[in-house]
């Protein structure tokens, strides 16, 4: 199993071969200091975000430990995630749904949303789907809709609301410019 070290709110995979393997199996993590990796030919440790780490740990692909070597169980990672993310459970449900269906799910912060989702992979798809998670009771405001539409038009890709509903299913609603 691949080993990862919990460093603050990130998980580092120090072993280069493990890093390449993990990155190469669906674009998990990001090699340190390599903004646009070409394939898996990088010589850098891999940084995973907590959500990816939690997912991989639960899947039994990643064994996480503290800097002092103490093991961190998947349940403990999840607990840390809940502290670090707002509405972690809802976001994680969407992450699970999309990763489970074989999509590459990366943090969407640089686009101003929760996830940037790729069909082939970052750098290969011309643009990701931008996904924002809404809890069922969250209110859809005028500002929210305009922001969504603005994003979709600038990135030229659909902006999608993901609304987790009962039974782990997720409703997705896409927004497109409508030329009236």
């Amino acid at each position, binding site marked *: 199993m691949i080993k990862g070290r919990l460093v603050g709110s990130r998980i580092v995979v120090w072993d280069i071969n493990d890093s*390449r393997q993990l*990155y*190469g*199996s*669906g*674009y998990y993590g990001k090699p340190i200091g390599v903004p646009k990796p070409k*394939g*898996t*030919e990088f010589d850098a440790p891999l940084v995973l975000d907590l959500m990816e780490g939690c997912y991989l740990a639960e899947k039994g692909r990643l064994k996480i430990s503290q800097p002092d070597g103490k093991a961190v169980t998947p349940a403990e990672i999840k607990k840390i995630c809940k502290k670090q993310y707002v509405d972690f459970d809802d976001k994680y449900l969407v992450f699970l*749904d*999309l990763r489970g*269906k*074989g*999509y*590459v799910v990366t943090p969407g912060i640089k686009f101003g949303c929760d996830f940037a989702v*790729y*069909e*082939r*992979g970052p750098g290969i798809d011309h643009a990701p789907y931008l996904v924002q998670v*809404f*809890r*069922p*009771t*969250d*209110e*859809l*405001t*005028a*500002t929210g*809709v*305009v922001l*969504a*539409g603005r994003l979709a038009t600038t990135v030229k890709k*659909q902006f*999608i*609301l993901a*609304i987790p*509903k009962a039974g782990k299913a997720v*409703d*997705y*609603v*896409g*927004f*497109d*410019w*409508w*030329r*009236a």
Partner: protein
Amino acid sequence: MSVPPAPEKQEEVQAVEARISGSRILVDDVRVQDELRTRGYGEKEGDDYVLKPYEALYLMQAKRLTVKGKEMTFDSLFEFLLKHDRNIMTRFLVYRDLKSRGYVAKEGFGFGDDFRVYERGEYEKKPAKYVVFGVSEGANVSAKDFAGAVEEIEKMGKDAVVAVIERRGEVIYYKASRMRFAQNKHDTSIPGK
């Protein structure tokens, strides 16, 4: 929606004389009723022919509506209608914008401040193609209800359109559609060397 906004070329209705009864706006003249009906204004309700508040406001603004026995202006009609419908401004702004783009818009299905909207030139020929609903500051809808509404609209075979009204009345439209993320058919693994 590739057709550019058409100018309001269709001959508009001539002078309409209306009568206020309670909170309703009625038109008594049968010939005027017919003319209104073919242009997509108003509806028969029992023995009465009733204009919706936003229709009355639109016709009033176009200087085609007068109210029997009253010196009514757009302002006074608006003030009057506001007492019965708090959301009249949102509804009117969306309605007015759709009309100015050459659409026929009729009362919606109750998803909120919604209209059923006919593709240009299709009114009375085909069912409404769109359901347009207004979202303005203060009148929000929950994400769950919104997704539910989009689903229902699509089940009716129509497109859901969200109309956002900015603070000064400009309307921005977005098409909302349910997405299905099927199993990804692409391979996301990176071939090693």
